[in-house]
C-alpha cells in the first residue's frame, strides 16, 4: 500500500513573484528522495505545494494517478501525505503529549496507542517529557517532536523540511539514522536539506533546484560524482 506522488510542471507564485517555474518530480514507492538547492531556490515552496499550503497556479499534482491540485491541506493529510514544516513549529504551549495528539487529529482509527508507542520507541526522550510544554524542549527535542507529530498522522509519504536546521552535529546524525529507520518501515520520504553531504548519503534519488527549476536529477550515486554538484554543493 504505497502511495505514488508526482508533480508535473508545477508553477507557484507568491503574489506576482514566481517561486516555482515548472517543477516536475516523483517520489517513488518506499524511497527517500532529496531536494537540494541554494536558499530561495524553491525547496520549501515545493513541499508547501505538495501539502497544499500554497496554491498551485499551473501544472498537475498527482497522488496515485489522481489529480489533487485543488484539494485542501487537511484532505491531503487524510491521504497520508504529511508535511513536517520548517523551523519545527511545534505548539509551544501544548504539552508534548498534546502535540502528538494534534498530529493524529484527523484520524478516526484506533491504532493511536500503537503509533504513540512507535513514535516513543524512535524518540525515547519524548517519553520522558510527555507532560512538559513543548516550548521548554531543546531544539533537538523539538525537532524530534515535530517529526513524531508528523508520524502520528500515519503518513505514507513524509515531507521533511530541513530536519537538521540548527542542531548539533551528533544530533543531526541521530535524527538521520531515525529517518532511515522510518523509511525502512515503509514510509516514503521527501527530504529537503541544506547539508548536501548528508542528504546525498541518506537518499536514493536527488533533485537539484535552482531558481524554481529542476536543474539536475539522478541517483545520488551519480550526483555525488557530478562535477557541478561537487563544486556547488559538496565544496570539493
Amino acid at each position: 500500500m504505497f502511495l505514488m506522488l508526482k508533480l508535473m510542471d508545477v508553477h507557484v507564485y507568491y503574489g506576482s513573484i514566481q517561486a516555482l517555474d515548472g517543477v516536475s518530480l516523483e517520489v517513488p514507492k518506499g524511497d527517500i528522495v532529496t531536494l537540494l538547492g541554494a536558499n530561495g531556490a524553491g525547496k520549501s515552496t515545493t513541499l508547501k505545494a505538495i501539502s497544499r499550503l500554497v496554491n498551485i497556479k499551473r501544472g498537475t499534482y498527482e497522488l496515485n494517478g489522481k489529480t489533487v491540485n485543488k484539494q485542501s491541506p487537511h484532505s491531503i493529510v487524510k491521504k497520508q501525505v504529511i508535511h513536517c514544516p520548517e523551523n519545527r513549529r511545534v505548539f509551544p504551549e501544548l504539552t508534548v503529549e498534546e502535540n502528538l495528539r494534534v498530529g493524529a487529529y484527523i484520524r478516526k482509527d484506533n491504532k493511536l496507542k500503537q503509533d504513540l508507542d512507535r513514535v516513543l520507541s524512535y524518540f525515547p526522550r519524548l517519553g520522558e517529557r510527555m507532560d512538559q510544554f513543548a516550548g521548554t524542549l531543546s531544539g533537538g527535542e523539538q525537532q524530534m517532536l515535530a517529526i513524531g507529530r508528523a508520524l502520528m498522522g500515519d503518513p505514507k509519504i513524509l515531507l521533511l523540511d530541513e530536519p537538521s536546521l540548527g542542531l548539533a552535529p551528533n544530533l543531526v546524525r541521530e535524527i538521520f539514522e531515525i529517518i532511515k529507520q522510518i523509511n525502512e518501515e515503509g514510509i516514503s520520504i521527501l527530504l529537503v536539506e541544506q547539508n548536501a553531504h548528508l542528504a546525498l548519503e541518506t537518499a536514493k534519488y536527488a533533485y537539484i533546484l535552482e531558481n524554481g527549476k529542476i536543474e539536475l536529477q539522478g541517483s545520488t550515486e551519480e550526483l555525488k560524482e557530478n562535477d557541478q554538484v561537487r563544486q556547488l554543493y559538496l565544496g570539493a
Partner: protein
Amino acid sequence: MQLKSQKLKYIFNSVVLLFIIVYPFLMNMSGYWMTLLVMMTIYGITAVALNIMIGYGGQISIGHAGFLMIGSYSVAIIADRFELPFVITLLLAGIITAFVGLIISFSAVRLKGHFLAVVTLGFGISVPVIALNWTSLTNGYSGMLVTRPAILSELSLYYFIVGCTVLFLWFMYNILHSSFGRAFISIRESEIAAQSSGINTTFYKTLMFVISSFFTGMAGGLYAYWIGFVGPTDFPVTISFLLLAMIVVGGMHSFYGPIFGAVLFSIIPHFTDEFMGITNIVIGLILVIIILFRPEGLVTIVDWFKMNKTMEKADTISKERGS
C-alpha cells in the same frame, strides 16, 4: 500536591457558589447589589466566550458588544411578538446571534490580526446604529421593554441567571478541554503546523466564532431579562474594549482569567462612578500595571502562591542536605 490543589479548587468553587446563593439575602434583596452581581455573571460569560477566540484561538474580536446587543434585542423582540417559553426565547437569542456570528466569520476567517480587528470593530460599531435606525423592528431610540417571565420572581430570575452562568461556563470549559480546544490552541500557536497536521483551520475558525457568539448572545438575553429594557445605547463599542481589557487583566491563557477580569471590572465602577470620568482612568491604570507586572494576568497570582511553596520546599530540602 496535584490532589491538594484540586481539593483547594473544589473548596474555592463551593465557597464562591455558596456566597452567590446567599448573596441576595446578605444584601437585603437590594436590586442595585443584585444587578451588580448579575452584570458580573453576564460579563463573565461574555469574557470567557470572547476568550475562546482571543486566548485560545488567537483570533481577535473587538465586536463582542455587538453580539451582546443582538442577543438582548433578540430576546426583547421575540418576547414581544411571540408567546414562547422564556427558556426557548433565550435559546433562540443564542441561535440568532450565532447565525450572525457565522455570517461575520465568512469574511473574518480570511483575515488575520489587525485586519480581523478592524472588521469586528466595524461590526461592533454598526450594530447600535442599526438598532437605532431600524425603527420598525427595534423601536429606535426609545428602546424596548422586556417583560420578566411571569412565572419568575426577581429572586428566582436571579437564581436562574446564576444557574445559566454555571451551565454555560461548564459547557465552554468542556468544549475547550476537548479535542476542539486543542485544535483552537494549535491554530493560535502556528497556523501552518495546524494545517499540516490536518486541521481544517477555516472550519475551526468559523466554529470559534459561532460558539463564541452563541454564548455571548445568550448572555445578552439574560441581560435583557434582568434589566427589563433594551436600548441602542446599552452596549456601545467601548464595552467591546472593556471586554478585551477584562481578558487581558484576568489572564488570557487561562479559562478562569477572564472571570477574574469580569468581576474586577464590574466592581470598579461601583466605587468610582461618583467621580466623573474616574472609572476609565482607573481601568486604564489597572491595565497598564497588569501588563507591566503580571503580563499573564491576575490569574497567575494563584500560580505565584504555588511557586513560592515549591521554592520553600526546595529551600527546606537544601537545608536538610546541609548546604
